[in-house]
Each structure stands twice: as structure tokens, then as C-alpha cells.
């Protein structure tokens, strides 16, 4: 039990510490693909350090909710990172929340961010909150449907059981999971404010969603939010890996399996990050009212995956 708790802590801390590195890697790949000279991979850490040292500037009209939200969002993302099996599978925290609750954690963080964005009462803040909720009300059910497909295959909504079924049982190809994987990719780009739904590098008022919400934040609050954003990207990547490429995640917590798991995870994250940067480099951002169509497609694909499960796999 105590070994399990240690492993749990180690995995969560590793996720928290590695998350900015993944962000740096994606930014680096993107810069290369765009023909720019890339910032060092550790750039996100430097940014965080700089932000933590600065004095926070807060609007006169801010309420305590505004200052509370960054901590809340960071805590939610840390919990999510602790729940998703990145290194080892059966961790002590996992019975606390299944995939539906995981969707709930992301929703909780998002609602707090949207509320904090509306707190100052600027035009951009409310605009960002409205757009974020628009994107999420379609993305969230689509994500849930992706999880449902995996749950129907494994007869469980517990992440460890799903990973166990998909990784360690006999090798079966599930066509439904192919649809689910495409839907998951589309949802994760939307949820992580990436191209084609949002552009993390923009501050152009007509297009920004996520950036509009955090315009008023500075210093340590901004640092926590940026860190939480990196952690969210990391958690989503780990989720995608756990659902669709689970091979390598350690079933038991012994040293050999764990070191293999770390190597496998790093490799998969590197490839995944490079792929994300590649997709971002070759596609353009959608107009805002195209985003519901994009996410509607993701939703339909996920539902289609579920139907295919019933038609072909039962």
C-alpha cells in the first residue's frame, strides 16, 4: 500500500514537473516546422520562474474568486494528472474517480476559469468565457462518448481496468476505437486551445478564446494557469496514450517494468508532441462558428464508434 502511495506521488510529481517540458518540446517542433529558430526546450520553465518572481497586478474590481481560481485550476489538473495512468496502472488514487469523474474534473477547472474571466468585467474576458463554454459544451459530450466506447469494450469506466483490458489482454483490433481515437484527437485539440479551434500564440481579439480569458492575470496567478495548461496538455496526451497506445504502462510497480514504462512514455510523448506540432503547422485556424461543426463532427464520430462497437464487436 505504502509503495503504491509512493508510486502515486512519484507519478503525479513527475507529471507536474515534466508538463512544461512537453510544452517546450511542442513549441520547439513548431518553430522548426515554421522555419524559425526554436527557443530552448526549457523555455517554459524560465517563463514560469520569471512569472513567479514578479509582483501580481490585479484589477481594482477583482473579487477573491479571481485570486482563488488559479490555485483551484492547478489543483484540479494535478488531480487529473494523478488519475491517468502514465507509468504504472493500478494506483491507489484511481478508485476515487473514474473516466466520467475525470471529465467532471476538467469541467470544474474550466468553469472556474470562465468565471474568473468574467470577474473583472472586461469585454475580452466575457468574450473568452462565452467562447470557451461554447467550445466545451460540444467537446465535453464528445469526450464522454469516446470514453464510453472504451468502457463498453472493457465493461468498466475505471481507467486501470480499461488500460488493463486494452493493453494486457490478447491483442484484438477494435474498429470502434479507431473512430474514438480520431474523435479524441479532435476533442483534445479543442480542449487544449490548439489549432484549429484556438491558437495558443495569438492575441488577436477576433480569434482568441483561451488567451482572452487569462488576459487579466499576471505573475504567480498567470504562472499557475500556464502551468495548469501545460499539465492539461500532458494529461490529455497521457490519456490518449493510455486509451489508444497503452503498451508499456507497467502493470505492477517493480523497478524493471517501471524503467521500461518511463522510457516508453517519453518516447510516445515525444512522438505525440511532434505530431501535434506537425498538424498545427499544416492546418489553419477555423472561424469561430465553424468550431461547432468541427466539434459536432467529433461528437458524431464518437457516437459512430459506439454504434460500430454494437454492430461489429458484441
Amino acid at each position, binding site marked *: 500500500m505504502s509503495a503504491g502511495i509512493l508510486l502515486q506521488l512519484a507519478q503525479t510529481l513527475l507529471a507536474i514537473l515534466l508538463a512544461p517540458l512537453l510544452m517546450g518540446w511542442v513549441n520547439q517542433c513548431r518553430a522548426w516546422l515554421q522555419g524559425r529558430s526554436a527557443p530552448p526546450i526549457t523555455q517554459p520553465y524560465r517563463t514560469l520562474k520569471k512569472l513567479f518572481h514578479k509582483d501580481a*497586478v490585479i484589477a481594482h474590481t477583482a473579487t477573491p474568486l479571481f485570486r482563488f481560481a488559479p490555485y483551484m485550476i492547478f489543483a484540479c489538473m494535478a488531480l487529473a494528472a494523478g488519475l491517468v495512468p502514465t507509468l504504472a496502472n493500478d494506483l491507489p488514487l484511481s478508485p476515487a474517480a473514474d473516466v466520467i469523474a475525470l471529465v467532471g474534473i476538467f469541467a470544474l477547472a474550466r468553469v472556474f476559469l470562465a468565471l474568473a474571466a468574467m470577474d473583472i*468585467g472586461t469585454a475580452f474576458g*466575457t*468574450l473568452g468565457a462565452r467562447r470557451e463554454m461554447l467550445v466545451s459544451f460540444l467537446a465535453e459530450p464528445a469526450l464522454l462518448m469516446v470514453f464510453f466506447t472504451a468502457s463498453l469494450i472493457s465493461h468498466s469506466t475505471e481507467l486501470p481496468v480499461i488500460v488493463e483490458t486494452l493493453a494486457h489482454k490478447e491483442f484484438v483490433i477494435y474498429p470502434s476505437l479507431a473512430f474514438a481515437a480520431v474523435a479524441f484527437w479532435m476533442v483534445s485539440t479543442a480542449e487544449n486551445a490548439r489549432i484549429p479551434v484556438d491558437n495558443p500564440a495569438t492575441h488577436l481579439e477576433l480569434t482568441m478564446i483561451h488567451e482572452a480569458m487569462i488576459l487579466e492575470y499576471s505573475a504567480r496567478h498567470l504562472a499557475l494557469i500556464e502551468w495548469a495548461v501545460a499539465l492539461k496538455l500532458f494529461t490529455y496526451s497521457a490519456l490518449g496514450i493510455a486509451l489508444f497506445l497503452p503498451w508499456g504502462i507497467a502493470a505492477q510497480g517493480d523497478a524493471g517494468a517501471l524503467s521500461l514504462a518511463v522510457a516508453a512514455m517519453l518516447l510516445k510523448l515525444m512522438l505525440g508532441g511532434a505530431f501535434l506540432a506537425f498538424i498545427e503547422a499544416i492546418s489553419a485556424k477555423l472561424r469561430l462558428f465553424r468550431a461547432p461543426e468541427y466539434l459536432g463532427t467529433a461528437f458524431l464520430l464518437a457516437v459512430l464508434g459506439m454504434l460500430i462497437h454494437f454492430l461489429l464487436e458484441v
Partner: protein
Amino acid sequence: MMETLTLLSSDPVQWAWGVVLFWLALGFASLLLQGAPRLLNRLVFPLGALGALCIAGVGAAGLGLPATTAVLPIGLPDLPFHLRLDALSAFFMLLLGAAAFGITVYAAGYFRDMAAGPLALLALWYHLFLAGMLTVLLADDAYAFMVAWEVMALASYFLVTADHKVPEIRRAGFLYLLIAHVGAVALLLAFGVLQGGHGDYTFDTMRLAEMTPFWASAAYLLALFGFGAKAGLVPMHVWLPEAHPAAPSPVSALMSGVMLKTAIYGLLRVSFDLLNVQLGWWGTLALALGLITALYGVIFAAVQSDMKRLLAWSSIENIGVIVAAFGLTLIFYTDGKGALAALTLTALLYHALNHAFFKGLLFVGTGSVLHATGERNMGRLGGLMRFMPWTAWLTLIGALAIAGLPPLNGFVSEWLLLQAFLFTPGLSQPYLNMVIPVAAATVALAAALAAYVMVKFYGVVFLGQPRHPALNQAHEAGWPERLGMLWLAAGCVLLGLFPAQVVGWLTPVVRLLTNQTLVNDGNWLTLAPVSAERASYAPLIFFAVVAAVLLLTYLWVRRIYHGRVRRSDPWDCGYPEQDARMQDSAEGFGQPIRQIFEVFMKVERETPDPFDRKPRYSGASLDKLWFILYEPIARATGWLSEQAGRLQHGRIQWYLIYSFATLIFLLVFTR
């Protein structure tokens, strides 16, 4: 003395009836107290709250006890009131008592500024309303049930029209009364079918009546229509967004939080207890209606700009979720999957209880806002968190809970329901088992939209800058109001953190209706329906981890770095001239939803000319069903009564001829 006490305590139905009498007495006493406004102000509502607490206690105690009955020698000769308290009644009594306690404590403060005359009338109807709802839950014959049902409907009608000088409120009240009675007629007919020709209207006879599937279906459809009209199922929902906002806020809270649940109670009572035949398609029908209602309600909630109307539409959504759970329960039950029926029934009851708490909390929260600002239109509110922090933070709990966010209570019931959807592949009917998980997508969509609605509601009303200078004088709610809200908010938190216990309490009800129990495979911390391998959820651990990380991060940031803060003007991309009117209005925040779901709406907008010096904007997204379904009916009714009016000349000769013709007709045909 001790003997009478033990006698009483062993018989919860007596206690419950005692509270009914107490509330009635309190209501009529308040009429007499008009001369003593101080006494009226200070005494009546707190005593009413005490009665509610008592009912919550009786309900909690009654959950574990076998059914008790009583016969009251009131009513018509040879037609006494039969009362019965079983686990189902006890659960809804617990819901009624617990929610009504918080709301009535709140009401004690909310109505303090009213003049004695109107207050006395209001207190009378308020307590009659409570007594009516309680008697509905206790009734064990159709006669008592219908009398109580009508008392409830009429008392709430008078409460809705408390502010009867406003024409819209009179209109809303009329619509409410009309649909309530159309529903009541359907219920009367349903009971007529249920008694199966015996002429005995006690529920005991109905339980034993032999029914063919045809007549059972007829009774079920009538009951679904009648109770659906009360609960606000689409398409019988039109009265709800009119009537609930018109009432004073504590009454809105009672109507949305509790009265709608009496319809759910009736639906469960008739279909699981009284009808001895159940058919699978009943469940499919209810599931489809519920899902449509849920989606329809939440879409319209997103485009409202009146905060109470927004909450009323959100009640329609929640009723839709509950009825969908009801349909799923029937489907599982008729398919012989008792354990799964137990799971969905648990989700249903849990959600009903949750809704009573968070909707009650949100409605009284809007009451405080209304009291402080005199404004219901969200477009003229904003920034209230700074002036009324108690109301704002407590309402935040309600808003997060209704948005279905963990670790609060709304999440638990939605989680249970979604789990139930994942079990449908086990159903034996082909196609149905495929379609139903897709229906889960609808529930998920409605839940996600509910979060949108709540961000809009909370963000526009409590956050941002005040959209009106007068709001700077908004005052915080008084202590009774805060206590009432605190009770309801505590309910939201505790029901969310201890689901394993709550599911344990629900076991007797579930066993009564489905002969099965939901097995919790987890310990007291963990909720794991059916098996821990399939799904588990431990909100307390969840909460503890989030709180711990939050605290650690806070301490770490403060310790390693610093906590320095500088205040300045908002940044807003460096744009200097911004004012409160540049924030999203309520219409603005709902605009994407309006654009996506415009097919359901009739949008009426008035956009100003760009050169207009005093621009006025107005926009309303109206319910298309009103124009498609209700206006033709209203026109047809008008036409029919006009035709009937031709018979009326006002001349005595003609009326004598009518009577004579009728007499001849009857003599010929009834020989």
C-alpha cells in the same frame, strides 16, 4: 404521557398528519394575527420551518419502518381519507421537509418588509401549499389524493398571483391554473381507469385490480399526461417558465424544488405501486419524452435574460433528466433486469433530492438579488459579489452543483445515471439496447449545456462590473436569509460528499418499488454500484486531494516566492475607454446557443439604427411550440365558445325552449 409519546413515535403517519394540521392551523392563525404585525413577522414562518424540520425527521425515520396507515373520519360521509406512509412517501417527505425547512427559514427574513394584510394572506397560502403537498404524499385513496392535489394547485396559484396588480403575473397565473386543471382532469380519469369498475377508490383496491394491458396502458398514459403537466414535461411545459418566475422567490423555490417532485412521486406511485402490469414501451416513451424535455429546457435556459425564468427553464431540464431516468427504470424493470432498475431508480431519487436543494438555493439566491436591487433582468445586474458576498458564495455552490460538477451533489446523480446507460447492452430487446447508449449522448450534452447556463447565470449576475450605478447600493441579505441559504448549500455539499450513505438511505424505497437493492461494492467512502471493478467514485478523497494540492501550492508559492499584490485598472489589451456596458449582456452570452439552436425558437429582435443617438435594443427568443401547438388550440377554443355563444340570446323564452327540448330528449332516450 410517556405512553402517548411512544405510541406517537411508533406511528409516523400520525406525526405527519399532525404536521399537516399544524400547518393548516398556522395558516389560519396568521389571518387572525393581522392586528399584530410584529408577531406575524417573527413567529409564523419560523414555526412553519419547525414543522418542515419535523417532517424531514419523520421522513427519515419512516424510511426504515414498515408502512403505516390511518383512516381519518373527514371528507364526505362514508368516504373517509385514507392515509398511508411507506418508504416512497417517506423519502419524498424527507425531500419536502429538508428543502422546505431551508426555504421557510429564508422566507422568515424575506417577507419581513411586507404589510401585515398581504403578508397574512401570503402566509395562509404558503402553509396551505405545504400542507397540500404533504397530504399528496400521504394520501392512500384517489379522493384524498385529488383533494390534496387541488389544494396544492390552488394555493400555489394564489401564491403565484401574490403580486396580482401586474397584468403579466395575472396572465401567468391563469395559464398555470388552466394547465394544472387539464392535468388534474387527466389524473381523475386515470384513477377512474385504475379502480377497474369496483367503484372503490382506495389505493389498496387499485393495487389488486386485474387489468388488461390495454386499460393499464390507458391509465399509464393518462397519468403520464397529468403528472407530466404538473412536472413541466415538453410539450406541457409552457406554464412553468411563466408561473415560477412570477411567484415571490421562496415560493418559486418551493414550486421548482418541491412541487415538481410531487408529480414525480405520483408517477412512481401509479406506475410501480398501483399498476400491476408494466410494459416496456411505457419506459421507452418516458425516456424519449424525458430526453427531449432535458435538451429543450437547457437550450431555452441558455437564451433567457430574466434570471428567474432562466432557472425555471433549467428546472424543466432537470425534470427531463428525472423522467428519462424513470423511463430507463421501467425499461430495465420490464426486461427483468432488477439490479439495473435499482441503479436507475437510485439515480432518479438522488437527482430529485439534489434538485430540491440546488434549485431551492438558486431561487432564494435570486430572491436576495431581487430584494437588494429590485431587478430580475440580468442585463441590468452584475458585480454583485462585491456587495453581497454571502449570497454570492452560497449561490456559487448551488450553481456549481446544478452544473453537475464534482464533488458536489449534482454530479453524483448524473454519474449514476450515465453508469446506468452503460449497462443497456445487457437488454434483451434488439435495437433498443443499441439506441439507448446513444441516448446517453443526449444526457451528456444537456449536462454540458447546463454548465454553460450556469456560467452565464452566475457570471452575468454576480461577477463583472455593475451594469447599473444603482447596484453599488445593493445590500447583503439578512441573517434568516443567510441561514436558509446556508442550510441548502450545506445539503448540496453533504449530498455530494457522502453518496454511499445517501444510497444506503434510498435502499428501502428502491426495494419497495423494484424488489431489488442497489449493491454498493465500495466502503463508506466510495460509491461503487454493482461492482468496484466496473466503476467507483470517492468524492471525499477527490475533495481531500484537491484541497490538499490547493493548500500546498498556496503555501509553496507564498514561501518560495512572495505574496505581493499591486492593484491597478484592468488591462483589457490596453484598451483605455471601457465601461460596464462593454461586458456581455445576457443576450450576448446566450447568442451562440441561439444561433446554433435557432430552429426551436422564434426570435424577435429589435436592433437600433447605427445613427440613432439613443439606441434601444431588445431581443427575445420565444418558444416555438407555443405558436405551433398552443395558439391553434387557443384559437379553436375561442371559435368553439363563440359558436356556443350563439345559443345565448339573453331571452327567457329561448331558455325555456332549451329546457323543454332537453326534457323531451331525456324522456325519449333514457327510458
